[in-house]
């Protein structure tokens, strides 16, 4: 999407349809990559596909030909293990050829399992270790504030990832500085690596926690494209606080046998499972 601020104000039917279609293609592409690589994190790829599609094809202002344009909106993929979905979104948005996706995790590929900003255009900062995105995003938002620059900063974390203390340190900084240009999206699929978040170290009441840290909070259906667009594309100017969007999602969404299963956090579908999944993801 080129720099067209007007599009952010209204959520047109065409935008919703475009985002829906992109989300479907991101899911298909991520699964293909995982099967080819024999490695990956399909559960989290599927749960964040709609969020990524909304951001790249309906919210963020950027020019893929100028990935370092100082005025671009910033997006930080803090849940870096979901690179299958993230790389697919970046390629479809034009940051690098879609053909490169076939090299995912192959020797000497720029697409290792976790994104690196040193060599991949569109990646703002390297992630993979959880809990790194928020502080970096806060720094970006402060830089914009200092420069009085209109760009916005978005960061996507997992919900298990919220257990990292760095999120809360950064959250306190953002709340204190009233970084209204900053939006945190939490992929609230209720599963982490080994089990449910609430059976591991419970996060609830998550919305109250972020409110207490000085943030506005919106709770939405993270698979509803119109809702995602409405909340994420709404202009930041009327707000006086950073915004936390709790996107309620299902891990594995879009592939019935993967839905809400801890074992699909990290795993590779076999040939039959892959065929079933691709069938379910047909238009």
């Amino acid at each position, binding site marked *: 999407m080129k720099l067209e601020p007007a599009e952010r104000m209204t959520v047109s039917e065409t935008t919703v349809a475009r985002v829906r279609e992109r989300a479907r293609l991101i899911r298909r592409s991520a699964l293909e990559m995982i099967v080819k690589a024999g490695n990956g994190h399909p559960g989290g790829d599927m749960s964040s596909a709609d969020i990524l599609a909304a951001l790249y094809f309906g919210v963020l202002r950027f020019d893929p030909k100028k990935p370092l344009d100082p005025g671009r909106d910033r997006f930080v993929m803090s849940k870096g293990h979901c690179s299958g979905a993230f790389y697919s979104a970046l390629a479809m948005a034009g940051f690098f050829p879609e053909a490169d996706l076939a090299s995912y995790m192959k020797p000497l590929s720029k697409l*290792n399992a976790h994104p690196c900003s040193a060599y991949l255009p569109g990646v703002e900062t390297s992630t993979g270790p959880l*809990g790194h995105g928020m502080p970096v995003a806060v720094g970006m938002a402060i830089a914009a504030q200092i420069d009085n620059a209109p760009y916005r900063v978005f960061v996507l974390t997992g919900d298990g990832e919220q257990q990292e*203390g760095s999120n809360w340190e950064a959250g306190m900084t953002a709340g204190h500085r009233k970084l209204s240009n900053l939006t945190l999206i939490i992929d609230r699929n209720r599963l982490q690596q080994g089990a449910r978040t609430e059976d591991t170290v419970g996060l609830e009441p998550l919305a109250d926690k972020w409110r207490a840290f000085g943030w506005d909070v919106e709770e939405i259906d993270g698979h509803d494209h119109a809702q995602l667009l409405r909340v994420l594309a709404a202009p930041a100017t009327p707000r006086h606080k950073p915004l936390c969007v709790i996107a309620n999602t299902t891990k594995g969404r879009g592939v019935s046998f993967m839905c809400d299963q801890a074992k699909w956090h990290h795993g590779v579908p076999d040939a039959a499972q892959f065929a079933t999944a691709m069938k379910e993801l047909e238009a």
Partner: protein
Amino acid sequence: MTAASSTTAQLYDCRKAFAETLEALAERDERIVVVVNDSIGSSNVGGFAKRWPERLINVGIAEQNMIGVAAGLANGGKIPFVCGAACFLTGRALEQIKADLAYSRANVKLCGMASGVAYGELGPTHHSIEDYGWLRTMGGIKLVVPSDPWETGEAIKTAAATSGPYFVRISRMGVPMLNHADRIFNCETAEVMHDGNDVAIIANGVMVSRALAAARALEGEGIRARVVSLACLSPLDENVIVEAAKTGAIVTVEEHSVRGGLGGAVAEVVAAKSPCRMRMLGFPGFLPTGSASWLMEHYGLTAEGIAVAARDLAVRK
């Protein structure tokens, strides 16, 4: 010194020996607890969790918290075994390791899983090839790098039986069972696994079996290479290094950055006490994408790569 070590072809995941040893110890000593960061499966402590759910503390994805909590548990008389991916366990919580464990002499045992480049294509964020440098420069924490299932079990037993902080590096890369003859494991003396006076190869962890294979290949050419397994990097057996230097040439081999690791530790002793020619094999820094086995091949961390370096140094002696 032990007899020439032979290896069997079957490969083992050292996490199995780790888990079996830990459970056997935990049966007899109820002070033993396990602390994890959402890493039950990857650390192979599912069995422990089933048997003693009340002794398994999962702090969630929060490594700094995890190390501090372990230090507190030790203060309360527990013997915590902290199990997580080596990269996050060390890198993320380094100051907690330094202040809460090493400096405070807390009785905490760190078990760094999938160490080195075992995570392969997951990339440099998930490799743990800086941990020797980080931990050995600190002092105050024993740093053990077992080479096979037997040594893994012995390292865990030793850590449980001795007070103070330990870091045990546990790969998940398959390794053969080595012949340790009558070796009694300890952290003070290294193990000479193959005799020879033409050149010395000093290795540890998953590199030991490769070093032994190199030595056997060189034997066919009439080059007698000594192979030293330096499982403990801290404390360091300086004596075995000085003795190795007397061959005139040392090749160090590590699944770690060549900066500040095993080669660096050996070089510090060699430079100060017994200068000799050295070649250091390891990784140059952040690595490109590739599987663990591809990376090992690419950087010559194979029996052939080791043999080339040892042959070169031995002949030029």
